[in-house]
């Protein structure tokens, strides 16, 4: 199935919880791999992922990447790239949440390595994942202040007595 057909199937299963389809124009590869569906209601992302994994026609058994994105207009997004190996299908999903209330359900029990990807999204971007078994920073120390990959992040001057800027 092409990814537009999968989007239609999702839309018929979930109704208005699935938002628009953003097709990447440019090259064939981009259209196939990176066109994404907005999941309008961020609370349902886990159900959508379970549906994509467990439906026999779809069978998305691997999560390729879970990444966080700062859109620049006070919203943050989480993008999920999924692949079905046997059926050679791809789909991408995107969830957008406001910056001051960035909460998204966790998909750790759907694909187990989402655990670490979500911890990194919390560490770098400040998006909290509900239902995550171990929500703490993974790359930076626990006493680090701020979320570095946000666009308005300012580098700290001192950290534990060490001067940070050059």
């Amino acid at each position: 199935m092409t990814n537009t057909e999968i989007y239609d199937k999702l839309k018929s299963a979930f109704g208005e919880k699935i938002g628009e389809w953003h097709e990447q124009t440019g090259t064939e590869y981009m259209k196939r791999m990176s066109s994404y569906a907005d999941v309008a209601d961020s609370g349902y992302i886990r159900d959508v992922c379970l549906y994509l994994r467990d439906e026999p026609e779809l069978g998305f058994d691997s999560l390729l990447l879970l990444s966080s994105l700062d859109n620049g207009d006070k919203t943050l997004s989480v993008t999920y790239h999924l692949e079905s190996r046997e059926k050679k299908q791809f789909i991408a999903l995107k969830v957008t949440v406001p910056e001051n209330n960035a909460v998204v359900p966790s998909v750790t029990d759907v694909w187990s390595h989402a655990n670490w990807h979500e911890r990194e999204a919390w560490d770098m971007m400040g998006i909290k994942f509900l239902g995550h078994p171990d929500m703490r920073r993974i790359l930076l120390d626990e006493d680090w202040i701020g979320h570095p990959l946000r666009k308005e992040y300012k580098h700290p001057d001192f950290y534990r007595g060490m001067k940070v800027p050059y």
Partner: protein
Amino acid sequence: MGLLEKQDNPFESSNIVITGADTLLNWARLSSMWMMGFGLACCAIEMMAASASHYDIGRFGVIPRPSPRQSDVIIISGTVTLKMATRTKILYEQMPDPKYVISMGSCSNCGGPYWEHGYHVLKGVDRVIPVDVYVPGCPPRPEALLEGLIKVQEKVRKQSLAKTVV
């Protein structure tokens, strides 16, 4: 004639050598500097290549030791991040005197390519521990590391047991 001045077999004519205590001790120390290979990042691979047979740091008497308590020289090879800097200081303090530090690579000299936007990179390991020799390069060739080691050996050769009173 002293031990180090006789080029051919010093014990051919007699079995008594006369030299200074400083010279003898320094010669013994510099010929067997045991290193704690503190391999952090890419420079660690060049340090491993220096320990392998092609460049062979072992012919200088350098044996890699896993523990700081058994080593004379620590080679900081790679980027020191803020999280690692506290641990580096602890390791340096665990080394017994007399100890020497070789900072290998531009990341540990001055922050390297991460000097501008690296919020988590320590811009030079000399912000936490005193450094004896800086070896430039990104990464430095194994021969450059050997040159750095020779410079430390020269420093050891000039040291003295007697305290100088200024």
